[in-house]
């Protein structure tokens, strides 16, 4: 079981990293969320995976029965999934807005925040003027 989870987490992170390095911004966002899915698998497996009994406290008892799954990583992974999900939502909305403004999502064209030197028509160094 742990091998299957480890290999899946590795496969998710690897394919996510491949997509995240893509020039296309949409692919990069999908890639980052795939890496997030891999990270979530790691979180879930941090509490050991051998138990199969749901983590419910039996009627009348005050602690979990022996052999029940560890509830803490489940709570952690739920939190991580929700956060990752909302971040992915935000990023997809961002990329779609960019696509609507620019027409495509090729990230080589997205240099408005950091224009290359000289793009504003002024030399990068005053000495170039002379």
């Amino acid at each position, binding site marked *: 079981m742990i091998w299957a989870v480890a290999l899946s987490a590795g496969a998710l992170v690897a394919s996510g990293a491949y997509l995240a390095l893509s020039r296309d911004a949409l692919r990069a966002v999908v890639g980052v969320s795939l890496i997030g899915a891999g990270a979530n698998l790691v979180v879930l497996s941090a509490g050991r995976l051998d138990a199969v009994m749901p983590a419910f406290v039996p009627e009348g008892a005050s602690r979990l029965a022996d052999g029940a799954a560890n509830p803490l990583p489940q709570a952690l992974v*739920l939190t991580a999934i*929700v956060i990752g*999900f*909302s971040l992915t*939502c*935000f990023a*997809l*909305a961002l990329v*779609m*807005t960019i*696509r*609507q403004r620019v027409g495509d999502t090729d990230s080589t064209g997205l240099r408005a925040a950091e224009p290359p030197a000289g793009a504003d028509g002024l030399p990068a160094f005053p000495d170039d003027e002379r």
Partner: protein
Amino acid sequence: MTTRAVLLEVVVRTLYPGMLLFSLWLLVRGHNEPGGGFIGGMVAVAATAVRAVATGSADAARRMPLGPLRLAAAGVGLALLSGLPAVVTGRPYLTHLWAELPLAVTSVKVSTVLLFDLGVYLSVWGALGGIAAYMIGLDERDGEVRP
């Protein structure tokens, strides 16, 4: 909106209240069984999303009580408030309290946890429903769905 899919619109108009009711049922059921604020909220988001596809994103956002942003804020506010009764009664913040509310024949368990869960439900619906409606609206505005 360019073309209206009449069949879809009719089906969604009929299903919409049912989906919201189902999401509320999931919210209440989450107290002892699978379900809860987040999952209920997600079903409500799904209702908003199909509504946005069928009758337009503006209509879908208008049908969320208070509007998306304020709905989400109200949800966070409720969740924050649910921790305060504990402080008033001298316990650490967010210690949850239960009470039996007698109701004619039977009695209903009321708790601050439910208030917290309701907050989660509202903030999920407001935030993600708002984003879903916005994203569906992006393709509406210029009249055609881009490839």
